[in-house]
């Protein structure tokens, strides 16, 4: 599919989210274009993860809807899922499996049929740990196992929740570089993070701010 920088990949229409009888956000609307890198900002408990889960179609908003290429994601779920890469704050990595097996599983359920895992794991600095059970790896390496699939994907929409947690400085820079390349190639990245970024400049970054609302 051809996407220019003007294409609206994902749009939120009047989203309202209520958790534990508290309104997290009310009538929130925005468009995300191809080429955007969007950071959802806000204090802890402001609803960043809830917003990402709603955008990914994992939770339903109290009201409003999310459109993928102008179609409700609940109606175009198959097309949307095929174009979405979601990395939640739970990494989806099994500690009983090796790094290689985890990556292979994650790529296979995303439908990829032909791939070599060794070069992908090398991208996230896991060379030499392919056969190690992820339960025995460090927190950062565990996280890297989950992030590895970002290096082998043709999904346009990336939704990543706190991608930099437990990742070292060099790793963060590599990730930023990857996000930037992805956006420049017509994709979009929606993320939350509390860390300052060095490669993705403030001009390049779009911010959506959520505030803690008192009732």
């Amino acid at each position, binding site marked *: 599919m051809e996407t220019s920088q003007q294409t609206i990949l994902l749009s939120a229409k009047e989203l309202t989210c209520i958790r534990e009888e508290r309104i997290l956000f009310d009538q929130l609307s925005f468009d995300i274009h191809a080429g955007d890198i969007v950071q959802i900002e806000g204090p802890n408990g402001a609803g960043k993860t809830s917003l990402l889960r709603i955008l*990914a179609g994992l939770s339903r908003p109290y009201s409003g809807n999310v459109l993928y290429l102008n179609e409700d994601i609940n109606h175009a779920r198959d097309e949307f899922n095929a174009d979405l890469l979601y990395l939640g704050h739970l990494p989806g990595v099994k500690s009983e499996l090796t790094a290689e097996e985890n990556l292979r599983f994650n790529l296979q359920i995303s439908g990829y049929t032909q791939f070599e895992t060794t070069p992908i794991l090398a991208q996230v600095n896991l060379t030499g740990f392919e056969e190690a059970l992820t339960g025995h790896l460090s927190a950062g390496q565990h996280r890297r196992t989950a992030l590895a699939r970002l290096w082998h994907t043709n999904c346009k929409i990336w939704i990543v929740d706190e991608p930099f947690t437990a990742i070292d400085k060099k790793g963060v820079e590599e990730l930023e570089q990857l996000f930037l390349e992805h956006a420049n190639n017509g994709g979009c990245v929606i993320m939350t993070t509390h860390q300052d970024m060095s490669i993705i400049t403030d001009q390049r970054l779009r911010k959506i701010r959520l505030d803690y609302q008192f009732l």
Partner: protein
Amino acid sequence: MERGISFTQAFWTLLVRDIKIAIRHRGDIFNPLLFFILVVTLFPLGVGPEPQMLSRIAPGVIWVAALLASMLSLERLFKADYSDGTLEQMLLSPQPLPIMVLAKVIAHWLLTGVPLIIIAPLLGLLLNLESGSYGALISTLALGTPVLSLLGAIGVALTVGLRKGGVLLSLLILPLYIPVLIFATSAIDAAGMNLPYDGQLAIIAAMLVGSLTLAPFAIGASLRVSTN
């Protein structure tokens, strides 16, 4: 980048992975089996060793123990995937969810149901089961335990998000288990009296076919509700 939706790939990926994890985590296979053996061996000690009495209660005891063992083992079916985020990835995968959950349930049945079927004749011997009943015992277990796994998985999928879903789970799925129990024990009783039991077997087989085709969709829908 080669990519496509493939039912067989989705099915085998999940099946192989779940079996691999269970083999590395052996307790998950042996616990239900041990429970099954313990319950059945305790019965003769509890009700007394008269052979007539034992052979009369044997079908019921073996089936009730198998049913409870299957229910206990089911609770963990989606728990690990839910708590480490793999379930979210499955829900967002372009591969068909019913196929993936069917693979998980079948893996679970291969690991916990099949050992029960293999050990059941030995326990029948222990309870002095009528010699004509062994065929019926094995065939009802072979047809019935997958039904238990499939129906139970719906309940598990509905309660996976709850912290203490255990009691609710039993309340939800026990009523669904009762028909299987009734027809299975009645088939074994009939076989013990040298009567035909094809009718009961046919009904259990019908339940198996019904749940095999419909349960995966119900499980998928329940998982979407639970992770909301």
